[in-house]
């Protein structure tokens, strides 16, 4: 069975600086795959490279059997791939409703009721805040909105970049719970980038560890959690 998304030997540069050094990674349909690593390891770059910005210099990115390495970003994002980018990046002056519509419109979905229903079932808090401006939401609500906006295009692959960034542990648990529910009920495939290694590895089926732009370890979530070097590098200081 061919993977939903596979990367082979992908490299990426910011100017002269190499950020990714030959990444091999696969995501199967229906999986939650997490990517953990220290600051500056290249996790977010890898996410952005999948979306074509920055573009991979070498290697190949294949989505559903189609080589999308050289595709422009907006066309990649219309292949039912959605991203909730790092730092949420919601539209501050627009209402929650408008933010969500932005997620659907570009994907060419004119009927948004299903999408809205799904998002509101997942995050009831957003329904209460539907007419409120995005910028006035709390951090957790903004993250819910960012994920909800990504879900509005009814993606088959969801790229989540650090959804736990700057959120209280309780809210993180809530959001991770929502991701697990989505994966179980709709079979949504998720590629998750996280600093919060413990939570992420517990949630994910499989994980990759990224160090200095290369993948140094791979395995199931439980396997990686049990490895002593992982515990030493990413889980010191107890878990939350």
């Amino acid at each position, binding site marked *: 069975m061919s993977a939903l998304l596979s990367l082979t030997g992908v490299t990426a540069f910011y100017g002269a600086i190499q950020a990714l050094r030959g990444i091999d990674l696969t995501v199967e349909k229906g999986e939650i795959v997490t990517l953990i690593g220290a600051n500056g390891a290249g996790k977010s770059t890898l996410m952005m490279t999948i*979306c074509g*910005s920055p573009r991979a210099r070498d290697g190949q990115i294949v989505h559903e059997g189609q080589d999308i390495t050289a595709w*422009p*970003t*907006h*066309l*990649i*994002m*219309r292949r039912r791939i*959605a*991203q*909730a*980018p790092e730092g949420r*990046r*919601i*539209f*501050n*002056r*627009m*209402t929650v*409703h*408008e933010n969500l*519509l*932005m*997620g659907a*419109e*570009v*994907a060419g979905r004119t009927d948004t009721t299903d999408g809205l229903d799904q998002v*509101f*079932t997942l995050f*009831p*808090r957003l*329904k*209460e805040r*539907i*007419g409120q401006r995005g910028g006035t939401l709390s951090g957790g609500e903004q993250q819910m909105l960012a994920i909800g*906006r*990504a879900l509005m*295009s009814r993606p088959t692959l969801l790229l989540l970049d650090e959804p736990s960034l700057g959120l209280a542990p309780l809210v993180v648990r809530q959001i991770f719970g929502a991701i697990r529910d989505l994966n179980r009920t709709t079979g949504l495939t998720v590629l998750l980038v996280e600093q919060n290694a413990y939570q992420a590895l517990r949630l994910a089926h499989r994980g990759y560890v990224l160090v200095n732009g290369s993948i140094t370890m791979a395995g199931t979530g439980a396997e990686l959690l049990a490895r002593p070097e992982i515990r030493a590098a990413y889980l010191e200081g107890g878990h939350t």
Partner: protein
Amino acid sequence: MTALRDAFLSALVALGLFAPLVGLVTTSGEHGLYLELRPIATAVVVGLVFLGRLIVLSRRSRGRAASLAAKPALAERISKAGKYVTPLLLIAAVALPFTGSRYYIDLGTLVLTYIMLGWGLNIVVGLAGLLDLGYVAFYAVGAYSFALLATNFGLGFWTCLPLAGIFAAFAGVMLGFPVLRLRGDYLAIVTLAFGEIIRVVLINWVSLTNGPNGITGIPRPTLFGLALSMDGGPGTIAGFFNVEPAVIQRIIFLYYVILGLALLTNWVSLRLRRMPLGRAWEALREDEVACRSLGINVRNTKLTAFGIGAIFGGFAGAFFATRQAFISPESFTFIESATVLAIVVLGGLGSQLGVALAAIVMVGGLETLRDFLSFLGDQMNSPLFSGIASELPLYRMLIFGLALVVMMVLRPRGLVSGRTPSVALHKVKDIAPDLVAQGRG
């Protein structure tokens, strides 16, 4: 005590500032120029500053807490008043020609031209967030397209109007391509340069544009084929309606043409805002990276913003040409771009009503101020003010600039700063969280 000292210091600054500005005046006598001193006038100005500062300080110490509490109420009142202001303005605009005063109709036409330009630029700056300092370029392209088509090929205003829009849109897209990757200050500089390039080309391409001498004999618009002319023949408006031809008819007709064009601009931008394209523009203004991640084609979205904004600049330019019957590159200097941008910023980025109000204040207000100051100068015939009274109108730019600064301090986000959501909810009700969790609500 501190208030007194503060006011005294302000008065001192004012003395330093106004002693040369107001206190000294040169008069030409029999042996050349003489310097004349005006101590009394200077004292009056400095005294006013002293008193003004005292009043401001005493008010501030008294009413700070109270004014803070009153602020949300004020904002609410403004947004409520907005509902009535729009129809009132519209009625006033339609009714203006019935005053029959040529002066007011001319002023109204000027204000409406700037409102239309403001609404056009609002698409680029207010909605899409692309800071454009060269909007006058599209105004110029529209004006010259119409003027050249009309004088060389004998085409009429209504035929040329869409063509002028197309040419301007083309110029907008031409500008858009090189600046796609630029943002903020850098974008502003390139657009500024673009505006200048167009003007310099118009000056130097003498064989086509007649250079600095401009183009004369640009035809007036017609009303369903009826010409505006003074001979009152069968093919003219006056002849058709069987009335005496008069200049005022042309003025009124042009006024309604620009009113129609401005309303068209408003209607189109309001409709666009509710469409996915308009929402994409607003999203672009908020966050370009997020837009990319949602699959928005950032390039095309920016280009359409430049293009559509330019179309209305082009329409306004064509109207300007037909109204003046003469155009030259002098009419398309940077100060025009700056005025239009000031109107958009002062009105509140993205607000249609704000732009209209700001144009009325900036263009109409300046004219009214000039009138008022000359009137005031005529009244001041005591020898005390000798020399000041006659030049009072010259101070209008100073006063106006001061008023703009005060306005931006009081309302930093523009006259009408709130953003109306582009999707209105039919029913706004609070839904209990437990109901939502059960999937109802």
